[in-house]
């Protein structure tokens, strides 16, 4: 069943079309890759799906609901979470706090209840706390919960960012270059990790990635962008043998 339907979205900045007529369909529990050379418009596509930018043209449907132009926090509440290319953790806060904050959107108690600590609020807080510990255990950060986020090594920061995104209880997770800066060994672990979280949390994943090994190894479907235009889509085997893709990457003229 289709969970995300990107219907011909275009993003124009001044005279430049960063993304034109992007069409994309993602099914439940599917892992999809979005690749392309630098500046191809991949992150712009992410930003349109998550509401940071409103597409100049076209619509985005999530679970058949049109989410074009609604605010990022509302989209997250509907079930799309993301990570960032340049890691945007809450740096000065603890690892645990980073994950706790991502639960806030599901909190039912009001602000006054949170200050006077009503029994209901306490119950919710305890639930959030336990859930966050579980999540941190799943990503292997349980022993670091009191560490400041920016003290973590790079690879663990990436994991924390994924844990934080998972805490919002998404149905679709967008990963922006999760393997950036990782060595081959770490990349392999990451592939495994991505599959694990897909199975455990039963979510669909859309990821931007440059490590072909990761993309080809884990994705079931791949979209290729070049200069904002979708030049190919299909299974990893298809993409690997597509002359247009080879041309875009190697620059045949």
């Amino acid at each position, binding site marked *: 069943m289709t969970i995300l339907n990107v219907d011909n979205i275009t993003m124009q900045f001044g005279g430049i079309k960063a993304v034109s007529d992007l069409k994309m369909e993602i099914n439940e529990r599917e892992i999809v890759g979005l690749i392309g050379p630098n500046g191809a418009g991949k992150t712009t596509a992410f930003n349109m799906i*998550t509401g*940071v930018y409103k597409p100049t043209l076209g619509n985005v449907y999530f679970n058949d609901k049109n989410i074009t132009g609604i*605010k*990022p*926090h509302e989209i*997250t*509440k509907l079930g799309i*979470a*993301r990570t*960032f290319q340049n890691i*945007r*953790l*809450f*740096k*000065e*806060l603890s690892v645990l*706090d980073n994950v*706790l*904050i*991502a*639960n*806030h*959107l599901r*909190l039912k*108690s009001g*602000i006054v209840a*949170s*200050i*006077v*600590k009503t029994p209901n*609020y306490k119950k*919710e*807080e305890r639930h*959030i706390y336990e859930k966050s510990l579980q999540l941190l255990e799943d990503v292997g950060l349980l022993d670091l919960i009191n560490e400041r986020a920016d003290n973590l090594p790079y690879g663990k920061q990436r994991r924390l960012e994924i844990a*934080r*995104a998972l*805490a*919002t209880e998404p149905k679709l997770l967008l990963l922006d270059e999760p393997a950036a800066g990782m060595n081959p060994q770490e990349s392999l672990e990451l592939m495994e990790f991505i599959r694990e979280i897909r199975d455990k949390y039963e979510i669909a994943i859309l990821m931007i990635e440059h490590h072909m090994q990761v993309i080809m190894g884990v994705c079931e479907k791949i979209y290729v962008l070049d200069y904002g235009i979708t030049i190919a889509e299909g299974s990893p085997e298809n993409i690997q043998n597509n002359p247009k893709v080879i041309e875009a990457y190697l620059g045949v003229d």
Partner: protein
Amino acid sequence: MKKHRLLTALAVVALIGLLGVFNLTFDSYKLRILNLCGIYIILGLSMNLINGFTGLFSLGHAGFMAVGAYVSALLTMSPELKDTVFYAVPIHPFVKAMSAPFPIALLLGGIAAGIVGGVIAAPILRLKDDYLAIATLGFSEIIRVVATNLQSITNGPLGLKGIDRVVNTGWSWGLAILTVYFIKKLMDGSYGKAILAIREDEIAAEAMGVNLFRHKMYSFIIGAFFAGIGGGLLAHMLGTIDPLMFRFILTFNILLIVVLGGIGSITGTVISACVVTSMMEVLRFLEGKMDFGFFQIQGIPGMRMVVFSALLMIVILWYPRGLMGTKEFNWDYILQRKYLNIFNKKKKKKTVSEEN
């Protein structure tokens, strides 16, 4: 955790006891300084909530205080008193008639300031950094200009006189302790964490589902509310208020407290509010005549503020994190006597870095 709670309770009792002793032994001048400390704790915390915890650079505090001060004062003044004070322009009948006992008047003053804060914040919260600073400063000035000109309500430049000076140590410090408690509980809870997330990274916070507008509004409204309470207390401590009191310099003083204490630390603000307020008084000698027995120097008017603005510059240039940074007082730290190890630790660090 239970041990900590007990310790905190004991500390509060000890503080109340100490304040009681001060209350009995201090002369009226010292008591006034003590009260000011309490009031500035409230004001500092309210600014720290907006500027330090939420990361919105607001300079509107004097305006919110003015609202709290005027509303609460007009509520506690008797109609007869109002008639004598408003001799230049007759008072508006509704303003003349309104009245409430002090605690309710204070609360209403705070609520009025909170409402004003919310109304101001709603349109300007989409601004960032310095634009927000200048817009809030602008609103604060507008409030002051309005207070100067709406003579039938505020008595214009003449201000209000003869306000009941009911604020004693109990009021100022009682409310200060309550404010500390409130802000602490807020920041420990889920909403406080969401507010911190906004300070840390707005874009990430929004992506994690934090409704930026709503949480910024919470912060602004609560901040303005406590600023209004602080303003009301000040009015009922000094007995007179006028628009000139609420110039930018008042905001500056509070900003000084917040920066000195550490932007984003409750503990820092509390300590710094007491230190700065006391120093303001101690440094008065700079402006009066100094008598060294064999010779005298004339005091220099305005010297105190030179010292304070220089102090702010020194802190921001060389110790930008202030006294506490974003850290808080912590029983563990005291109990484990970590402070005794500070020297050893430093030594160790040094040797390590030398080895490298």
